[in-house]
């Protein structure tokens, strides 16, 4: 797409969106047509915002890899994942992971770093943040094992929330969603907390390998995670808690 104009890139993206929307969604998943159509508008508005006011065009023009499997290994632990987009920047590479919102992803705040340390120490429980940090580790390390990486390159890892801000615009012609995206670069947190994050990875890895699913902060898990867990209603640990005397 390097030779395409900004406008052409936008048009291709929106065309692709239309095809994807038709194939990936169905009216029957929605209670009303109005809601279905609105969600389509919302998603399209997100794409439009990304390619008009957001950094989308640059991300396409500089893209060197998409949907690429990244792998890394440390101390016998093999991690892999699929990066949405890898962009060549002036100083190196930017790995981008698209999300609806970045609200619960890793950030560069001191508090976020502290939370990772608390989780590792078993003092508190921040599973979403840990998951986000493990993903960052996988991609930042993994990109360095690809052909597009050259030693000395600066790596940026970005969580990009396509629907970070949404609102509606009233109009007698019909309400329109107003959307803007927001990207957050978090590699700095990875580098400063590398040891903590790999400690977390190590523990998760060992637990899975050794079939050890004993929860560390069961009280916090129950309070924060069980309600959203799809398996709760069959989980004997959760049930035991509920029927205890």
């Amino acid at each position, binding site marked *: 797409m390097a030779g395409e104009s900004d406008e052409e890139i936008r048009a291709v993206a929106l065309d692709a969106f239309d095809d994807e929307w038709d194939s990936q969604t169905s009216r029957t998943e929605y209670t009303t047509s109005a809601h279905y159509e609105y969600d389509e508008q919302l998603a399209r508005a997100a794409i439009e915002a990304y390619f008009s006011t957001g950094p989308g065009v640059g991300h396409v023009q500089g893209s060197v890899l998409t949907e690429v499997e990244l792998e890394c290994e440390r101390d016998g632990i093999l991690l892999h994942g699929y990066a949405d987009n890898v962009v060549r920047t002036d100083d190196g590479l930017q790995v981008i992971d698209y999300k609806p919102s970045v609200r619960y992803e890793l950030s560069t705040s001191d508090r976020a770093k502290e939370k990772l340390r608390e989780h590792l120490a078993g003092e508190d429980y921040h599973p979403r943040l840990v998951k986000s940090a493990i993903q960052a580790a996988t991609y930042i390390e993994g990109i360095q094992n690809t052909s597009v990486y050259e030693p000395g390159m600066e790596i940026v890892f970005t969580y990009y929330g396509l629907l970070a801000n949404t609102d509606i615009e009233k109009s007698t012609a*019909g309400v329109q969603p107003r959307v803007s995206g927001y990207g957050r670069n978090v590699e700095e947190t990875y580098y400063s907390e590398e040891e903590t994050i790999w400690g977390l990875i190590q523990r998760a890895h060992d637990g899975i390998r050794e079939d050890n699913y004993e929860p560390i902060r069961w009280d916090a898990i129950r309070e924060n995670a069980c309600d959203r867990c799809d398996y709760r*209603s069959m989980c004997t640990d959760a049930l035991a808690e509920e029927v205890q005397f």
Partner: protein
Amino acid sequence: MSPSPSEDDSDEEPSPRIPQQRIIESSEYPMRVLAGAGTGKTFTMVRKVEHLIDEHDVSPDRILALTFTNKAAASMREKLNEKLGAPGYDVNAYTYHSICHDILREYAYHAEIDPQFDVVNNADRTALIHEALDEITYRFTSPEVYGPDSHADGAAGSLLKFISTMKSKGISPSTIETFLGDADRLLELEALVDRIVDRANETVRVSWRAPSADRLEEMRDGLADLQQSIEDERTALGQTGVEQSVATFLCGMEETCTSLAELLETEEASIIDDEHKPAFRLPAYLFGTYASPPSGIPDSMSVTLTGKLRSFVEECQEAADLVAGYTAYEQRLHEASLVDFADLIGATLDLLEDPNIRAEIAGQYDYVFCDEFQDTDAVQFELVDQLADDDKLFVVGDDDQAIYEWRGAAVENIGHRLEERYETLIPETLEENFRSKQPILDVANNVIAQLEARGSEKELTAVGDAANASDGIATITAAEDDEEQAEQIATAIGRLLAGSLSDVDETYGAGDIALLVRKNRHAKPIVRALEERGIPYQLAGGLAADSVGVETVLAYLKALANPADEVSLNRVLTMRYRLHDVDLRLLNTASDSLSEALQSLPLDQFREPERVRRAREDFQALRAKREIYSVARLFRELKEQTNIDWYLSPQERRDLRTLESLIDSFGEGALQPALDESFLELLSLMESLDDSVAGVQDQAETVSDAVNIMTVHKSKGLEFPVVFLPNLSADQWEPSTRSYDTLGHTLEETAATPLDQDFEKRDEYEARRIFHVAMTRAEEQLVLVGRHADDGGVDDGDLSLSFIDSWLPEQIPWRATGASFPIWQEVTAGLPPTATDWTDEVAPIDGGVDPTISVNGESVPQSVARDRVLALARGLLNGDLDSVSPATAGFAVEALSTDGGPALSHRHSYTSLEKYSQCSRRHYLDYLVRAFEDPQRGDTGSNTVSIRDTGILFHDTAELAAKRSLTSPEKWNDVCDELGRQGSYSAGIVDQAKGCIDRYFSTEASSWEILSAERSFTLDIDGHTITGKIDAVYRNSAGNLVVLDYKATTMQRSLDDNLQLPIYLLACQQLFDERIDEAGYVYVGSVGPDMSTRTFSDDELAQCRQDLLTRLQAAEDSTFDDYTAGDHCQWCPHRSLSCSQTH
């Protein structure tokens, strides 16, 4: 004996008190009685009806009595029947809706509706709302059907609420459309608000901080400019509809400009010299130029004029979208020949506009009596007015107990609206309360007296001993954390049950205690705390969500609807079939899907094949039935096939009733869904949507053996010896604006404007009334649990709220104080000196809920002791208990509890005594500790189940038929069909019950007059209480009274060798003035038709009383240790115990 309030089932009617007697005997109409809580208003109303019939020869069928719920209507009929005999049933006791239903059926042709119309049920309504949502052009609102946080927040919830608000006020879609006008204009009106804020920014928002005379003068000029701009905007507006309403707002703003200019002038000196310095920021704040109150304006002041106008315009915009959905909903209702509750009344009102029809309908009644009038909405008010043709209207209610405004009820109906409509209205009040101790009433009076805009000045006073009581109020300062508050409450309840609270002499049973919550979620932590202590509780409908057992039953339904739902299937295999972990793993790791593996894996691969086999068979059988049965029927099959009830705790079984009644509601409507995933989704949606528009006003069903937990709304009309009110803090009782209130009010009457009142204030008034209702449920002990809210109020140097108020013009309804209910502040300020503080006594002791106890002389934490017991039990099951010495392994049960647990209560019935004479152990297990029954095995029980169900259906039929005075087998069969449908009985059982009806009509009893059916009694014998129900009391052809018990069984009973009939006769001595000495059985089962009766002499009854006393005394001491083995063991629900083997 003092007169009892309506709720009392006491069989001996007291005499009316003087104020009640005056009302009963008065011939003056129209009359309104404002009757406070517990003052016997229904009692008075029923006695007045009785008086009219008895003393004034008014024919019962010339009297119309309207109430709110079917239950209340039935109860009124029953009371009149008890007093007047059969003529009591001739009084037309209806609900506001049911009379309209009957009128519309009769006059369907004139009303231009399909005579076969159905009343819409929840399922129909949800489906119609969803369809209507697609008819909306979304210009101002989001089409997202459900909100991100709560289903009720989305378009579906909004439309439902909008329609219900508008219909309760009798506002049609076209009225709304005419009012709102063009959508473009609504956008422009929003821009108008922006312009005013912009203008205020230019004219009255200043950057300086030190006021001076010049600066204040300049600001006064600014205010004049702002006022002029607003006036210009106003004169450009139209003279009708929404523009006229906005103009009213602008007028209020102009007045405010004038008033603020006066403030700046009058208070100039005090503003400059600091005392009222922040006043110079008031204009800019009130006209919306600050996002939050600036320095010097109290944080608790949230009202701005531009904010209020913006909210109104936004409400109009939202309505402009929703009105299309409203129109579509109405259209679809009509197409489907459905009517909703509001339509029943609306269509009847339309019908009554025809003077001839009105004369015909209203002409059927000479007197119209209305109960709970404070809960009527605008259309119900009109209905009553139309029906009370010649003003012989008697209205009773309590403005202080009006707690349904959020659903459209209008408290004015019993106040000024009634006074204006009926200029000759005779006002009466009832203030003598027959329920509560005086200190409880003092607190309740005090809180309600602080209600501004209260319609009356009633003051409740206790009578009898309660008047002189000085105790009855306790407070607990609640911990900040809800869980800790729950611990405090559970501790207090535990101590009440154990009788160990220092200042409470009485010992209470769990059923004496009620816990009334303002919001559903308040109950949850308290329930957990009660659970941990093993204190039995009952959640009234709506609160029973999150029950483990109910979720298992739901999981079963989900797994049946979709076998690929492996999470649900696993849940069922774990919780119902108790599959071993190894077997679950085997099934889940099989190459087939879980449901296929369950059906196909060879049983010998499993560690516990029997359990797998049972699960396999049950699933197979139920899957096959899923296609052909309705949901309600399938649900019954599920319970029978799987015996899942047995796997639920008594609490969970109670919880399950909520789900059952929800599913049953699908059996009544036009829509009969099959069990599929969309149905289950609908089920969960209905629960969440109904939170926003609660469909029922019925009282909660209460239980006598568990703490009753319910919302205050559900407790209306009930009474309990002890009432706990938790979460009494300002933030939990904070008033809020109700959606579409302002618009609804503006559209309701021609002269109404959006500035007539502060609608948030109305919610505050209602909160106060809810609290009043809650407190007045308590008879002996009211426990108030709350705390002061965090101080979000006034800082040093802030203007005082009252100062600000004094400068807000009267033309605007909002005050700086806004709407707030500092509930704990008011409670603590008004406490009587005798109120006791339990906070210290319920504070957590060392170890919290895990105290140290003594086990065989050793001190251990209670949890450790429990674990040890469980380990012993496990060892017993695994057969490896050898290493334990029986001498030291034993535990005294008492050691496991610090408070002794809830006391066991002894209440006896004929059946329980019979069981005792059979076997002491059985009595102990069934009636004292309420032990689990053995699980049912195989199909052995199905025959007895069907005989029992048949019997229940026949008894219910006989009861209802008697109450409706039906005397032909055809009519009885109709009732049987009706009840069969409602209770989802199988066709076979309905047929068997009809067989019973046939047999009944072959007996002589069917030609006798029925005087009473299913009459409850409480018989007191030397301090022992026996309760029960008498099937029927008849007057035979010789004119004598006879007690008859229906038997649907296969065997006849001896008339001589049992206590049942004499118990009934002894009870009748207390219930009826007339002597009854004959009793017997009517056999309607396969052993019949037959009837046998005998008479009992006084001597025989006296002897029987003596025998009873002996048995009662013995039954008090029933123990687990004594048992009698015999033939009865084979039917015993505990026959798995070793005792049955000894026979």
